[in-house]
């Protein structure tokens, strides 16, 4: 399905499989070290930091289905958005304020939606599948837009009440709690995704991506596996959405529809598809650049990301990490 070449074996990419060493390498601790260092070193940027962490989780969920299983979607925002609104409605309308309960509810709602929509759409392929993923997120956008009494409509849903985490850590004005809370959730999500990718299930996903016909021929339940990974991915996306609501105490329409899906795709492609840490690098670079550029130069910003997308597709299909890989490989073998 996907034709982006997965990274070569032995590179920094995490392709999973039966001969891949699943142990965590020292480089893999770098993002966490950096994240903790940023907490102490850049206290003014913690809300941007939390946003980056949340989108890393969101991108990670997309990498699972796109990079590993090869499912192309324009509608991953449906799960993000549903998670965001579930947390928001619980906190603003229903008086359910415990953040972990909100998170669990958002995860469950997005997961169920993932099973249901996955079961429906994953029997189709190509343009039809794209169209269906897009239509599903647009359905939710319409609902969020029109059901104003519950969702706040175009004004968004403000006043989402979120109680202290574990009853101990209040969400403060400086975003310290939000940052650490997001970091902790991301860490758990990362660990699960990583386990999954190195598992036999993960290997069978790459098999499906590479050649679904042959997977059928070796007796694999291809459809069931795809629905399963779609649901897992949806659950993670829903959690990311809920985090966004909780850290902003607000949820608006911009979590649903084509644009957040497209932006997410761009972030992941920019970082590198099907290698876990592309989902880290992409949102990091994208959101920092956006923070600096998008407000001052909105036209150039949009043009720039469009251009980068085109260039990545034409010349650098592994994204930033793919370029790093190639550079490192050249350094190691200067003669080659």
């Amino acid at each position, binding site marked *: 399905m996907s034709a982006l070449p997965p990274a070569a074996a032995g590179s920094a990419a995490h392709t999973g499989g*039966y001969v891949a060493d699943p142990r965590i390498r020292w480089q893999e601790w770098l993002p966490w070290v950096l994240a903790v260092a940023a907490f102490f070193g850049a206290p003014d940027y913690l809300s941007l930091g939390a946003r980056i962490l949340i989108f890393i989780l969101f991108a990670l969920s997309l990498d699972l289905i796109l990079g590993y299983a090869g499912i192309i979607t324009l509608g991953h925002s449906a799960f993000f958005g549903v998670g965001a609104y579930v947390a928001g409605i619980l906190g603003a309308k229903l008086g359910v304020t415990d953040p972990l309960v909100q998170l669990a509810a958002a995860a469950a709602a997005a997961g169920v939606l993932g099973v249901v929509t996955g079961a429906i759409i994953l029997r189709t392929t190509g343009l039809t599948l794209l169209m269906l993923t897009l239509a599903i997120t647009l359905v939710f956008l319409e609902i969020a837009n029109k059901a104003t009494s519950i969702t706040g409509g175009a004004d968004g849903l403000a006043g989402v009440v979120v109680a202290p985490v574990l009853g101990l850590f209040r969400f403060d004005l400086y975003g310290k709690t939000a940052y650490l809370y997001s970091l902790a959730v991301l860490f758990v999500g990362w660990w699960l995704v990583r386990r999954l990718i*190195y598992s036999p299930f993960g290997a069978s996903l790459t098999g499906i991506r590479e050649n679904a016909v042959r997977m059928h021929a070796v007796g694999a339940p291809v459809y069931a596996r795809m629905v399963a990974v779609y649901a897992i991915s949806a659950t993670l996306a829903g959690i990311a959405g809920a985090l966004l609501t909780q850290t902003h105490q607000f949820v608006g329409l911009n979590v649903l529809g084509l644009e957040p899906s497209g932006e997410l795709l761009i972030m992941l492609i920019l970082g590198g598809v099907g290698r876990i840490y592309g989902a880290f690098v992409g949102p990091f670079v994208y959101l920092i650049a956006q923070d600096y550029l998008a407000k001052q130069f909105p036209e150039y910003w949009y043009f720039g990301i469009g251009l980068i997308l085109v260039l990545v597709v034409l010349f650098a299909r592994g994204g930033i990490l793919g370029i790093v890989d190639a550079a490192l490989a050249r350094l190691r073998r200067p003669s080659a």
Partner: protein
Amino acid sequence: MNAILETRALCKSFGALVVADNVEFRLAPGARHALIGPNGAGKTTLLNLITGRIEPTSGEILLGGEPITGLRPAARVKRGLGRTFQINTLFRQLPVIDNVALAIAERDGVAGGMFRPASRQRAVIEEALALLATLGLADDARARVADLPYGKQRLVEIAIALGLKPKVLLLDEPAAGVPSLESHRILEVLDGLPRDIAILIIEHDMDLVFRFAQRITVLSQGAVLTEGTPAEIGANEAVRQVYLGERHG
């Protein structure tokens, strides 16, 4: 002796076009059996009927004495019906060993595991390595399939099918596209396959067919023309007619 694979009055037609005409075919356990016939004789159609890729218009297919006619392809695989494809259908970007391990893991029912790392599936990996060794691919286990020469890719194709431990193995032109210098490797591998697997081979390379097969079935226009030992088939006038007819027509 009971046949391990049998078709009874198998028919398939697309409108007026009859592509399988009352095919009665029996494959003995442990057989080395070849299916030959001119282009368009219905060899691949028969294979697709047996594996369940297409449904017969009428007739029955039995595997180990049990009817499998209505089963889906994956269910037939589970019951021991393996096949290779005429055109390589491999996991090209994955290492050779993963190509085989994916199949073995499915057969063992461990392929859905989400938590324990795949590389800790010792039994799967050791079986895959052993299998690759018997096919002379041990040194290529970690190479990407796409980087292998074509002849070796054909062997990976066979390795995946063997990874499913089939009772019956259908080989669709295993030597197709392989340079003649390398095709002897394919024959060696075929000769070395476990004797308890019944093998049905479709092949255009008559040298390979006559050296490998103990029985040969000749198809012509969707129907069985004749069946016999290689010597009988080689001497059969009707078979020669069919092939001559093709050469002239």
